[in-house]
């Protein structure tokens, strides 16, 4: 009998504000230790928290983008525990009245097993709440002591909690990736997983179909999609083996070790989960008016799914872009913006734009290990070059050279075309003269062609291209050559 896997995620997204959630200290990454730890961050006695409007605004954006309920009134609570990177002795979070309520996220699942087809699924979002991040502990060489850096303390987090709606590692990864794309798309989080801006906790349990939920274990702090998949696969197998061997799964917090590919339980402290939440008397309830929500709604960009649907209508169809083209071009906000800027230069040539972006641009980015945001050619530059293809100034092979030059050295297409002399000859008089000369020099081959050896056409094209140093407009050359050869 098979096992059913039940997975829910809690994702901590660091919000992309300039300052901390409760004070005006900077949140810039990578500063010298404790230089951004102000009196509030280090919890000096007597300080008071003042809520950052930018953090609330980002929470509203997230709520709107996921069709979630946005609470007109929400409350901050203290979550009490002792740890040196939390100098107050409590974390300010939200408990029973979070800022964002129920919503949903639609995901595209690419099954990991070979022949299964991709499918769509909707994952319900339980809630999302605002809270502050803790500092960092350094276990280096400090004479048996621990070093504490409180720069990160007080950085705003939006913790996004899903329902346990996922039933495989593939679905969990698809959900996390979709969420990752969304928070970057709407500009509330930079999504940098190495720097810890997007951290996932995964709750996993197994059960026999139709049975009540099994006991879950929570894999903490996964900061890569690959590790998430490995950790879930390992954990699921561990739970199944444990139960099938007559054992019992106990609720626990566990860590994934990427080096061994295994999960292990953290030493659980007896009172670890007794957080004694209560409303923080230092903070009044947060009120969000419907006017504010509407203002934020007006600032929201066109979302990924909306853009996909619009492109399908405007650019799809038999002669246009395929759904997989459009999926590729809307994979990230950077990609979609890039494509739209290029398209604006040559609005009638969507397919050409798509081919260049999915072909040359992506291949070069891969080769150079860059992502879209680091592309050395701007969308405007590429659009300028495509205009020169569209109006016949350069051939496709000429364009490839222009592209390589712009990639390596920068500059606009027109300047590169000029400097490299890549302008196509579209002057029909010049092409005719060239063709006349070839016909005169190759009388025997012309005779063969005229007697029915059609294949020789390519031979003449080759000669003419060579004579024009590759600059003859190919379409025009074909026409003229055909006419003259036919006599």
């Amino acid at each position, binding site marked *: 009998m098979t096992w059913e896997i039940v997975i829910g995620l809690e994702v901590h997204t660091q919000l992309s504000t*300039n300052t901390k959630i409760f004070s005006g200290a900077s949140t810039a990454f990578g500063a*010298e230790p404790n230089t951004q730890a102000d009196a509030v961050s280090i919890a000096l006695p007597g300080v008071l928290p003042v809520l950052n409007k930018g953090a609330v605004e980002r929470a509203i954006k997230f709520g709107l983008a996921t069709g979630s309920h946005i609470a007109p009134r929400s409350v901050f609570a203290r979550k009490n525990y002792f740890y040196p990177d939390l100098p107050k002795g409590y974390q300010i979070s939200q408990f029973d009245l979070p800022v964002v309520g129920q919503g949903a996220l639609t995901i595209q699942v690419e099954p990991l097993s070979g022949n299964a087809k991709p499918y769509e699924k909707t994952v319900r979002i339980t809630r999302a709440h605002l809270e502050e991040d803790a500092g960092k502990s350094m276990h280096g060489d400090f004479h048996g002591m*621990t070093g504490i850096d409180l720069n990160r303390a007080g950085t705003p987090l939006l913790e996004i909690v899903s329902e346990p709606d996922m039933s495989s590692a593939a679905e969990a990864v698809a959900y996390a990736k979709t969420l990752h794309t969304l928070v970057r798309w709407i500009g509330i989080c930079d999504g940098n997983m190495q720097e810890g801006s997007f951290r996932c906790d995964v709750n996993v349990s197994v059960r026999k179909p139709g049975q009540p939920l099994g006991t879950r274990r929570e894999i903490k702090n996964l900061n890569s999609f690959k590790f998430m998949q490995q950790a879930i696969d390992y954990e699921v197998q561990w739970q199944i083996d444990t139960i099938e061997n007559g054992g019992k799964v106990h609720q626990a917090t566990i860590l994934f070790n990427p080096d061994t590919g295994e999960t292990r339980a953290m030493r659980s402290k007896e*009172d670890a989960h*007794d957080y004694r939440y209560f*409303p923080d008397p230092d903070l009044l309830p*947060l*009120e969000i008016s419907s006017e504010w929500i509407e203002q934020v709604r007006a600032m929201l960009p066109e979302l990924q799914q909306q853009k996909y649907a619009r492109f399908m209508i405007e650019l799809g169809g038999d002669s246009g872009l395929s759904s997989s083209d459009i999926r590729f071009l809307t994979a990230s906000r950077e990609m979609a913006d890039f494509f739209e800027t290029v398209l604006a230069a040559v609005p009638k040539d969507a397919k050409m734009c798509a081919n260049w972006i999915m072909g040359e641009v992506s291949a070069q980015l891969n080769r150079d290990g860059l992502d879209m945001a680091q592309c050395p050619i701007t969308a405007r530059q590429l659009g300028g070059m495509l205009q020169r293809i569209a109006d016949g100034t350069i051939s496709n092979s000429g364009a490839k050279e222009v592209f390589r030059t712009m990639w390596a050295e920068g500059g606009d297409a027109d300047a590169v075309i000029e400097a490299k002399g890549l302008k196509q000859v579209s002057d029909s008089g010049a092409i005719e003269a060239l063709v006349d000369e070839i016909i005169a020099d190759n009388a025997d081959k012309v005779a063969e062609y005229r007697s029915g050896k059609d294949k020789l056409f390519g031979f003449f094209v080759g000669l003419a291209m060579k004579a024009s140093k590759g600059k003859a407009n190919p379409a025009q050359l074909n026409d003229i050559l055909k006419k003259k050869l036919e006599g």
Partner: protein
Amino acid sequence: MSLSLADVEKVARLARLAMNDQELQAAQAQLNNIFGLIAEMQAVDTKGVEPMSHSQDLAQRLREDMVTEPDQREAFQAVAPQVEQGLYLVPQVIE
């Protein structure tokens, strides 16, 4: 409702308070007095009254997202028991 001695011990442990038996018993008596007061309040009919989360009927004031706090590490660390390489040092904590 009244607190057992074990409850008091647990709360003390959670608050990292070291208390001897005498102190625990004194705290138990004091806390149970407070619970008496709470019991009285809970007897009041509050049907239809929205629970308050703050004693003042006001909404939270918000701050613009602008940096206002300069680096004062030197001043703060001058009063810290031990610092090194810009870090506050504390007794070792390893999970």
